[in-house]
């Protein structure tokens, strides 16, 4: 009985990945048993060299790829064929190239696309769109085509398209790639201001340090380190073992 009560009182983790195994159809084993737990409100960086399995892991979080073994739970709901639509609402993935994400003719329609798929309509939909665009500071660009926005603006609109779905956890794939320094800083300010649970896949280690108190290093399909970002990044030997390094001139 007490156990039952505890379950109700303590919010379930936003993300719980247990012993996840996955092999691609060509036989390449991409994930060798990944364990990851992210509590509500945490901001976690997912680091690792190219080919470590980061993107494969991300595509498991919303059921695009189905695990060979192991489970993924989002706020207590496990990912399966029957829950996949609700899971996709709870997991907001911002893809690396905004041109892949923004496919509608105008910003407003693109931001409305997600919530409309999840059954929001009418005034509630308009309110969601306005709120999401305001959160990223793009409310005055609503009627423009994504084609005519700068790289940084596109990235922020891509973020808004996901925010409009009101996700439990935001998953960002290389959010700082192809951004100029000002756009990079502005995006960081937006992300910090959201106050949402976040998993950020990145090669940009200073960005991880700026945004995420905790980091996880994934290499060869397995979590090899999990701890405070500053400590992990200060361990030069650990970084070198996993083909990571701070940019020239940086020291911790």
């Amino acid at each position, binding site marked *: 009985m007490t156990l039952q009560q505890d379950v109700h009182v303590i919010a379930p983790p936003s993300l719980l990945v247990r012993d996840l195994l996955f092999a691609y159809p060509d036989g390449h084993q991409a994930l060798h048993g990944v364990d990851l737990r992210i509590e509500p409100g945490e901001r976690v960086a997912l680091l690792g060299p190219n080919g470590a399995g980061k993107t494969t892991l991300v595509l498991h979080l919303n059921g695009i790829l189905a695990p060979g073994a192991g489970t993924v739970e989002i706020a207590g709901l496990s990912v399966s064929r029957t829950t996949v639509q609700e899971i*996709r609402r709870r997991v907001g993935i911002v893809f690396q190239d905004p041109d892949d*994400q923004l496919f509608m003719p105008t910003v407003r329609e693109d931001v409305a696309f997600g919530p409309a798929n999840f059954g929001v309509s009418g005034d509630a939909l308009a309110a969601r769109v306005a709120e999401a665009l305001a959160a990223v500071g793009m409310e005055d660009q609503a009627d423009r085509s994504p084609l005519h926005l700068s790289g940084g603006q596109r990235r922020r609109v891509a973020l808004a398209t996901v925010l409009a*779905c009101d996700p439990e956890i935001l998953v960002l794939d290389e959010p700082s790639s192809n951004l100029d320094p000002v756009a990079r800083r502005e995006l960081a300010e937006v992300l910090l201001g959201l106050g949402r649970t976040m998993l950020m896949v990145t090669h940009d280690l200073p960005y991880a340090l700026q945004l995420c108190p905790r980091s996880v290093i994934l290499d060869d399909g397995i979590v090899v380190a999990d701890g405070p970002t500053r400590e992990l990044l200060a361990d030069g030997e650990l970084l070198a073992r996993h083909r990571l390094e701070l940019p020239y001139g940086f020291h911790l």
Partner: protein
Amino acid sequence: MGAGHVHPLHLPRESVVHRLPPQVKIVAAFLGVICVVATPREAFPVFGGYVLLLLAVWAAARIPVGWILRRSVIELPFVVLAVLLPFTGPDPRIDWLGLSLSEPGLLGAWNILVKGTLGVLTSLTLAATTPMRDLLVGLQRLRAPALVTTIATLMLRYLDVISGEARRMRLARISRGHDPRFLWQAGATARGIGALFLRSYERGERVHLAMLSRGWTGAMPVLTADTTTRADWVRGLAPVAVAAVLAGTGWVIA
């Protein structure tokens, strides 16, 4: 380049025609062309009436006549066939300036020329007053197959992205000294097109993944709550009513 918001056939203006909902304009243009096609070819004055009607619509839409006429030259290749008909058509023949012309051929040529031209002018009027995006919305509201409108929407969005990619690939080729002047040097260009196809295919996959991640289930959700009023339909179909009267007159006088 990269100015995807204007297509060369669109003339952005503030006018009553521009403000009409796109589906009304699509239906009106379609019915208008039907009226023209249904008019007997011998009813010559009626075709003058159609021209006056179009002039009235252009005035309402504030489209300069010259602007439309310049764009109507796309019709020219199709007119060539019509020009041949009077020479190749069957008897009876009439003599004109020393040329022996077939009378049914002349009428056939006139038929193609006048109806084709009116059809092109009507389509140009629709295109001039309706942005491409709204045309798609209009088709969607007219219950065109969802797959078709979705594909067209994506095409509209990615045409510029893909042509941008093609431009960058070409620049990269030229920067490495590629200067195709002869047919046998076209190999690199051909391979470039192949690579572009693969890249577009891969992008398609990524776009699809991103759509799935936002809950796409195969049907485009309804995003706008705009309603079309009865007054819109009345305004939009008024020229069609005139065209229908003209077509009817044609049958009476012919």
